């Protein structure tokens, strides 16, 4: 293997290191030289990723499918019994359905706010050469996707759009260590910040020192100003364990996301919010209401009115 060099290579090393540091400084100071080059790469790679996605999608999950095969069998059996149990529960739930419909009016659940969404297919995952957790989707600015828009799956929050090309976009997954989202606990309405940890679990820190977290608490996104980057009311995850140590002022917990970020195939990008945001629907402005009272009809009772009193002639007729 070829070897050689000396002072020249050392000088070259210094020059190249200084050049690298120069690039890093430019990037950190916000000079947009690098962003342009990355978006050019993205527009170049997107068609390739799309083609490869079409070609390799059956192969892509081969290893994970093989690995999960034994557990999948158990899962099917568990699901079958759960299905039978749920069928009976459905009958009971019909009674509760009426109450639920009323509750829906004050809960801003995801998808209820009439947001306009763009469905997109996942065509690429973040490179394993970088530690960032991203997805590439096949919808871009031509479809109305913009930077800092919320991305959701059928189960809940997935991430936020990081960069957009004409026909593709990069989504920063909620599992990325740089990802943070304000969340609200459904049970107590306490708010906190959920951070990605790079893996399948997430770290939740409450903002309210008096607030408390319980295992099983469900979390919803709290929303941002102008719904950017986060819309409110999107299911985020469920608390799996609570840290009871007193090292922090507020409680912390581990959270499992509703979305399976490793196997997400189709996502929706929320591209615009309705004129009245769902979060304003929690406290609706007072308006005139019409209340209709239905008074039951009185039961007819015998009275002593003259018409009802039998007359002598009438008695006569009756006796005849």
């Amino acid at each position, binding site marked *: *293997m*070829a*070897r*050689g*060099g*000396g002072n020249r*290579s050392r000088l*070259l*090393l210094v020059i*190249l*290191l200084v*050049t*690298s*540091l*120069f*690039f*890093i400084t*430019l*990037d*950190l100071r916000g000079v947009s030289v*690098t962003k342009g*080059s*990355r978006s050019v*790469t*993205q527009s170049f*790679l997107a068609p*390739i*990723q799309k083609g*490869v*996605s079409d070609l*390799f*999608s059956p*192969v*892509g*999950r*081969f*290893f*994970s499918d093989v*690995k999960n095969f034994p557990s999948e069998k158990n899962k099917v059996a568990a699901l079958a019994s759960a299905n039978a149990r749920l069928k009976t529960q459905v009958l009971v739930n019909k009674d509760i359905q009426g109450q639920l419909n009323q509750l829906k009016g004050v809960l801003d659940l995801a998808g209820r706010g009439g947001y306009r969404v763009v469905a997109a297919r996942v065509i*690429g*995952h*973040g*490179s*394993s*050469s*970088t*530690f*960032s957790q*991203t997805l*590439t989707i096949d919808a871009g600015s031509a479809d109305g996707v913009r930077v800092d828009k919320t991305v959701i799956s059928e189960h809940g929050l997935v991430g936020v759009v990081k960069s957009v090309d004409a026909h593709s976009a*990069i989504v*920063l997954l909620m599992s*990325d*260590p*740089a990802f943070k989202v304000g969340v609200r606990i459904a049970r107590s309405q306490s708010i906190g910040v959920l951070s*990605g*940890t*790079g*893996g399948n679990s997430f770290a939740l820190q409450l903002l309210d020192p008096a607030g408390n977290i319980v295992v099983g608490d469900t979390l919803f996104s709290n929303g941002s100003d102008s719904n950017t980057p986060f819309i409110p009311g999107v299911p985020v995850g469920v608390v799996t364990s609570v840290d009871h140590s007193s090292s922090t002022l507020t409680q912390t917990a581990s959270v499992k996301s509703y979305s399976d970020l*490793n196997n997400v195939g189709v996502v929706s990008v929320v591209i615009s919010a309705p004129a009245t945001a769902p979060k304003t629907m929690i406290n609706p402005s007072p308006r005139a209401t019409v209340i209709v009272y239905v008074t039951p009809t009185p039961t007819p009772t015998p009275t002593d009115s003259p018409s009802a009193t039998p007359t002598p002639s009438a008695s006569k007729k009756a006796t005849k």
Partner: protein
Amino acid sequence: MSPIRIALNASLLFIAFIIQEGVISRIHLPITGFSLYLAIIVSMVLLENRTGAVILGFVGGIILDLSPSSQSPFGQWALVLTLVAYLIAVNSESIDEIVSRPVGLGLFVAAGTALSLALYLILGSLLGESNGSFGRDAIVIAGNFFWTMLFAPFLMPILIVIRDVTVGARERI
């Protein structure tokens, strides 16, 4: 290293980059992903002299910095791979004995990849980036180490053939 060799190596690395971003990233390998790109850079650096290795590391880093999924500042990979390439080139004499066997080669390339990832994380921490939990990062590095160790012995013969062809092309020019 002549400008033509630099251009040829850069083209080869760019093709590897496209394969990495387009194909390898789609395959969900157990443990964690495999960085074909880093494995190719470390293998190619082994075939170069000090000057060539440093240039190759820098060019390879710049290409990797172009990754649209990257969250790090542009130039971070260039800095890391230039340093790793120089370290490998400086210690070439002791390395030659190790990489003469396929197992040693696999281990060395895997170690080079792991070192690159670790330096990238350390530099990222110095620059204030969020890198996630230590355990998760350790799994990513260990997973890359494992897959690189498996694939590296198959990569090197291909790279040697490509290198011979490119050197021949240069000589013909």
